């Protein structure tokens, strides 16, 4: 059973959404303030957090910032449709995905399932190790070691890094990255991959020649430089 934490100030909505998710086989817990959402998300009891951005007092963006300070629990943001700033800020802060409001609850369930598939790969041998240069990835444990230290990445970032590392030194198209790492086909004007990649770049730091470890190849996709 996947346990979902719903954080939204709209009590009627969370109540109905909770019922919907339970019918779909999730276990849903609802809280209605940002403060409570932060406390609950950090208990480690939930596999995934659904966070509304527009909340009075403590906004969803701020709650996400606080969660990410100490936890990599997957977070899906509920953003207003067309509010690009919230969306980009959210992804930059380490949200795994976003669902615009209003959209059908089926859409949310699909996104939740896609993220959970990435986080809990069913038929993956836990012993598999991907090594390229100073990067070591254990997809089974979703653990990343970079230059001998643990790299704090969100599960979406891990999936992207994994897809790039499997083909290190080769260009991986954005289409493939979207399908393999985000679990959904690439749509037009979709900036999610670019935002996640820029966040990974910051975490990897620059190369000795001051270039980034992940290069963007215009019109083709991204490439992880192999040592």
């Amino acid at each position, binding site marked *: 059973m996947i346990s979902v934490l719903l954080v939204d*100030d*709209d*009590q*009627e*909505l969370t109540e*109905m*959404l909770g*019922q*919907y998710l339970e*019918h*779909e086989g999730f276990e849903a817990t609802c809280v209605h303030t940002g403060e409570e959402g932060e406390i609950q998300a950090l208990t480690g009891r939930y596999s995934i957090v659904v966070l509304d951005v*527009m909340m009075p007092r403590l906004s969803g963006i701020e709650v996400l910032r606080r969660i990410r300070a100490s936890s990599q629990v997957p977070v899906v943001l509920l953003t*207003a*449709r*067309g509010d690009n700033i919230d969306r980009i800020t959210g992804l930059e802060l380490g949200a795994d995905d976003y669902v615009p*409001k*209003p*959209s*059908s*609850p*089926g859409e949310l369930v699909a996104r939740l399932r896609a993220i959970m598939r990435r986080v809990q790969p069913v038929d993956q041998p836990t012993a598999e190790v991907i090594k390229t240069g100073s990067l070591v990835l254990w997809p089974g444990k979703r653990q990343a070691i970079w230059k001998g230290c643990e790299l704090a990445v969100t599960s979406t970032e891990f999936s992207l890094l994994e897809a790039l590392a499997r083909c290190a030194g080769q260009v991986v198209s954005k289409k493939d990255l979207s399908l393999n790492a985000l679990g959904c086909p690439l749509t037009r004007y979709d900036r999610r991959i670019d935002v996640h990649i820029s966040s990974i770049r910051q975490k990897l730091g620059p190369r000795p020649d001051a270039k980034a470890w992940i290069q963007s190849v215009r019109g083709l996709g991204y490439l992880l430089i192999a040592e």
Partner: protein
Amino acid sequence: MMKPSRLFWKLFLAFWLATSLTFLVGLSILVLGNFGPGDPRLDAILASEEQLLREFGVASGGQLLTVWEHSPGQAIGVYDSAGQLLAGSPVPQPVYEQSVISKDGATLSLRSSVSPGHHDRRKLGRLIPLIIGTVMSALFSAYLAYYLAWPLAYLKRAMGDVAQGRFETRVKPMMGRRRDEIVDLAEDCDRMANQLKLLVQAQQQLLHDISHELRSPLTRMQVAIGLLQQDPARGEMVGRIQRESVRMDTLIEALLTLARLQGRPESIEREPVDLIELLAVIVEDAQFEAQMKSCRVNLQAGPAFVSCVSGELLYRCFENVIRNAVRYTRPATGVLVSAEVNPATGCLTVLITDQGPGVESLRLHSMFQPFERGMGAADSGFGLGLAIASRAVHLHGGTIEARNEPGGGLTVEINLPRG
């Protein structure tokens, strides 16, 4: 007739200075030119002196020089060959010298401190004042044009910026320490830019709020539909969808009212209305709602106050404020509506006092803005009621303000002039 402005005085003084300087300089050069090079009188004197010396001798020449009226700078002297002054005044630095054989055969030297003119130089000399005058006038005009034109260039650029939506532009700081109507205009331009910026921001905020308010019921409807699709037996979801659509309709209705209230005071239709009677009707309606919380609404009012107003708008205004009071007052308490006419101003003052939690002092003003909701009242309204009330009162030339009562509770005071 308008009072002459600073700019007028500036223009006047500048032009006056320019023209009078041109005139004075030209005139003085002309006058000086009479005694300077090309002075015909000096020519004549020198010629006569030469003739006198040649034909009558030094004594006669001396007499002419004694009676010659001359300016202090001019001197003519007659010297002998040894350089001894014989007649006239001493000329230490002669610019003109001519030797003359006098009547008695001595070689004399006639010296002048100012040179007599020649005919060609005299013509040029006449043009010089004219040229100088023209140049001076051009210099002044150029300065004047520059002085007037440069702030206008900045103003033009600032206006262009505003027209393109860059409301941060400020032109006043460019004007330095200048003080005149152009600077006032720059100040007005800055104020306009700022006002436009605030208006656009308010409009964007309103649009943002409206879309958020419309989205919430839509999202709930989407989830209700999803639940129905999961389990068609959940008939209560249909009622939910219906409720949400009614909410959206109410919101749109309220927004349209708000938009209508944004017009000018002349745009509303007025009719004579007894406001006391209007209040009595609203209080009676609110009584029903209050009874469900075991509350009471009491009206304290004097005689009829008939005013020419929009009855519909003021009905909505008082209804919103009174229903708000009923909503927030504690159960089993009373809401007091009192109306009295201020004898000094002839205004009607309506006080609506509840016995609720009151409002944080920071929000006493902002609560009249659209979409400002009370705390813990997420489902109790859209936050448009007080905004509508406030605009309706202002359209009638009145004032509305809220204050917390010392013993708890909120009082909304509405002042309406007799229309």
